[in-house]
């Protein structure tokens, strides 16, 4: 038999401020690892830069971060850049981005749920619980499609979140994630987490009941080569006029110089502002049926 492997798409959310060789390594390492489990076939990778609304210090305009990511990934035949998240007016929860991408993968579009395109898009952004509650009549079409999917010899690709170990540890930060979202992220989607440096993702899984409960859907990839190259370090080097060659692609270096990105001024952007998630989610009750 050709393959009982589940086709898989890896989605990485983040600032990509700027994209680095290390980011692209994540995809390569994750793909190798998921293939070696014998259960998956990685068919695609998506880089989804966060929108300017995120409010992180030093974040340069999304259009630049998108352009740089596109330049960097020109030579890749399986990883692409997705602009949807960066184009949203407000910061988008990771889980919402994943729901949107999943629906695109399933090919469910306007036809399934309604005439108005805008309404349909909003429906895609709702959680499975909400969908069930609101569209219990029409939901049969959705679940029958899902049922059909599992019967196909080539099912639709699954979407998993690709991230570094620091991302996993961020679940602990108060106000940054909603419990429901973390639950949906690991239960419905799954995580592929690449460890680097001294962080121990196993510990993060151990210390979170939610992660622990769904540990079979949290894939930990060990990066044996210690590589602490980070976008933060890159920006620091650029501010100090030090070389970043061989840490990020040449085309990205050129772009940065052309547009004079990453200076002491750019690093002060959003200084003193709280991250958008902390503000947005502060007003919402912890357990919510309405996402």
């Amino acid at each position, binding site marked *: 038999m050709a393959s009982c492997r589940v086709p898989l798409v890896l989605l990485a959310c983040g600032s990509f401020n700027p994209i680095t060789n290390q980011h692209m*390594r994540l995809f*390569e390492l994750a*793909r190798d690892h998921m293939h070696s489990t014998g259960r998956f076939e990685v068919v695609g990778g998506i880089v989804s830069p966060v929108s300017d609304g995120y409010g992180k210090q030093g974040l340069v305009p999304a259009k630049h971060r998108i352009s740089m990511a596109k330049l960097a990934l020109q*030579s890749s035949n399986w990883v692409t850049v997705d602009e949807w998240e960066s184009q949203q007016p407000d910061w988008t929860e990771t889980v919402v981005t994943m729901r949107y991408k999943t629906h695109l993968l399933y090919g469910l579009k306007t036809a399934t749920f309604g005439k108005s395109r805008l309404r349909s898009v909003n429906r895609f952004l709702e959680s499975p619980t909400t969908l069930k509650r609101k569209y219990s009549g029409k939901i049969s079409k959705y679940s029958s499609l899902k049922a059909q999917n599992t019967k196909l010899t080539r099912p639709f690709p699954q979407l998993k979140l690709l991230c570094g170990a620091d991302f996993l540890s961020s679940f602990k930060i108060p106000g940054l994630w909603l419990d429901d979202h973390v639950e949906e992220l690991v239960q419905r989607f799954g995580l592929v987490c690449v460890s680097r440096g001294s962080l121990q993702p196993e510990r993060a899984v151990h210390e979170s009941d939610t992660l622990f409960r769904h540990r079979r859907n949290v894939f930990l990839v060990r990066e044996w080569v*210690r*590589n602490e190259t980070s976008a933060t370090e890159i920006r620091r080097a650029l501010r100090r006029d030090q070389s970043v*060659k*061989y840490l990020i692609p040449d085309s990205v270096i050129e772009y940065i110089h052309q547009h004079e990105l990453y200076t002491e001024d750019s690093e002060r952007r959003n200084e003193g502002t709280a991250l958008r998630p902390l503000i947005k989610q502060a007003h919402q009750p912890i357990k919510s049926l309405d996402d």
Partner: protein
Amino acid sequence: MENPTTSKVVLLACGSFNPITNMHLRMFELARDHLEDTGQYSVIKGIISPVGDAYKKKGLIEASHRVEMARLATESSEWITVDSWESQQSDWVETSKVIRHHYEELLAREHNRDDVDTIKYTKKRRIERVQFITGKEVSFPKPKHGPQLMLLCGADVLESFGIPNLWKQEDIAEIVGRYGLVCVTRSGGDPHKFINQSDDLWKYRKNIHVVHEWVTNDISATHVRRALRRGRSVRYLLPESVVRYVQEHSLYSAESEQKNADVVLAPFQKYSDASTSG
């Protein structure tokens, strides 16, 4: 942007480059930034000199491949070049001889010396070396206008000075005394301690430039070869063109890693022969 008061420097890196990685290339960039940051130097050129096959290191693949990969890797660099002289010699060449060779070439190019001058200069230097071996204090005079040639290496090379029979003491002294060393620290090394513990190195500590790589970057060629043996991706660890070359020529397998497995490394062979022959 050359400041007339700065000394011109050429960086020379010797090694297996088996294969060349982004880390090797980073070393050059870090060294250049460091030296120019002192305000005393202007780095005008970088030279990668892959070792010859006669070095007999385990897993060392043919020099022709290693040189070609280094060439592909430096295509996009404005100042780093590859030199195949060392790799083309039939016997293994001591690092000090490689440095001497390149230094002579540099001088010849700079001053357009005729043959007579070169011979006079070589004789003078040979006398100086003898004086050094016999313990007489000798300063290594540097030509006033020529560029300085410095050996660029990682902390592991610096610490290898301590391995018995790997280096000749007079060679170490010449490298740090006459030329100079730029040592880029990799994770786990402590070059300052090592320099402190060696009288030879301590004497010439002003010629040893230690560059701290604040961001740990452990991409070693050993790791890359291991990943390739296991069919894993090495993209973004090496330049794209080198990754393609490795794939096209199916380099680095379990077999290639066994090459020279039961052979003694050339320096050990050479120096132990010398000691047994008295």
